[in-house]
């Protein structure tokens, strides 16, 4: 099924300061929307607004012609947000964190879901340790592992490659490519160029050029 996220005339503010206004673009299935901009240009605010956590000052965000808000279950179920913070409980193991996520969102269970997901990200052997004992990069990978649980159509990723080494970065980019091949869409903020995804699949949005 083809999905579409459309943003029309979006304006966001932080305090009294207008970050961006009249921003319009669409994110379609099989495409990466790559948001670029200098520090403080409102990239994170844009992502959090689209994910529904922050209210826009003006404008519309629609997911398949329905309002994309937290009150719309079809949107919250199709969308996965990984922000600056990993959203992991330090006292729980990687496996327990993922298990919590799966139960909270009532995602369908398959037998070796966690094992296969953790294996894909190469952190399977650390899955029983409390997350506080993992390195920053490993914690980031556990957070990103949430993207692979259940099915999702839109990934909203804020600096997903932070703390990741080259190998892990390549793994994540492969997973992003697989998601695109399965007609998923990605909204991405990162300061690093994408190595593996072809430029035809990337739409660039520049913030802070007004």
């Amino acid at each position, binding site marked *: 099924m083809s999905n579409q996220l459309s943003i029309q005339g979006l304006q966001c503010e932080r305090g009294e300061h207008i970050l961006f206004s009249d921003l319009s673009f669409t994110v379609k299935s099989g495409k990466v929307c790559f948001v670029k901009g200098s520090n403080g240009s409102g990239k994170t605010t844009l992502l959090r607004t689209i994910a*529904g*956590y922050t209210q826009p000052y003006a404008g519309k965000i629609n997911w398949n012609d329905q309002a994309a808000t937290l009150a719309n279950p079809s949107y919250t179920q199709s969308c996965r947000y990984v922000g600056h913070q990993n*959203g992991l409980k330090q006292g*729980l193991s990687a496996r327990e964190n993922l298990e919590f996520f799966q139960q909270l969102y009532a995602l369908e269970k398959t037998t070796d879901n966690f094992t296969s997901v953790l294996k894909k990200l190469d952190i399977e052997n650390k899955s029983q340790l409390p997350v506080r004992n993992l390195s920053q990069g490993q914690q980031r990978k556990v957070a990103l592992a949430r993207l692979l649980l259940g099915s999702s159509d839109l990934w909203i990723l804020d600096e997903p490659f932070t703390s990741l080494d080259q190998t892990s970065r390549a793994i994540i980019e492969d997973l992003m490519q697989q998601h695109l091949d399965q007609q998923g869409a990605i909204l991405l903020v990162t300061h690093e160029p994408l190595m593996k995804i072809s430029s035809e699949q990337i739409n660039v949005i520049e913030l802070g050029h007004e």
Partner: protein
Amino acid sequence: MSSTIFPVLKRDLLLAYRNSTDIVISLFFFIVVVALIPISLNETESTLPRLAPGLVWIAALLSSILSLHRLFAEDHADGSLDLLLSSSSVYQCVLAKIAAHWLVTGLPLTLISPVIGLAYNLHGEQLSTLFISLLVGTPVLSCIGAIGAAMTIGLRSGSSLIALIVLPLNIPVMVYGSAAVRASINSPDNVMTYLLLLTAMLIIALVFAPLATAAALKISND
């Protein structure tokens, strides 16, 4: 729609179990307060029961507030609040967090209250009234506290602000809770009235506090 109560409750209880200092600190604070005040007041055995209702309830209130700032602040800091807010029912998530807070702070002090009551020279029905009033009243403290905790996440002086917001709102609970215990000493016929009033407060708090808390969380997490 599936329930989000169970996963959140399980997670919070597991975290509390692994970091059991939270439970111990709240309970010890309660015990220390109720043990110290009679010493400082130099009361005799016969006047102690008169003090018990007020003191135990004040200690319960302070002990409940002591751990409130962590209720949502940690979830906010590590980003897991985002996960809760985009789940299918924020109301249930909040209810589960309130339940976990009560199970970790309110329930232990309720369970230990008969022992405290004995130390204050209460007996028989007075002990059971103290126990029941805390059993019904302390969940209300957690419910009201959750609203304050949700309003102050992300603020630098959040933990002291919570006390300022929550303490006045808790006055009715404390008044009726201690009145129930006092009635069991002076006029046992009125005990039921106060306990029923506390129960009514609990029902209202359970219905409305999670709504208010969820709304406050959505605003504070902006």
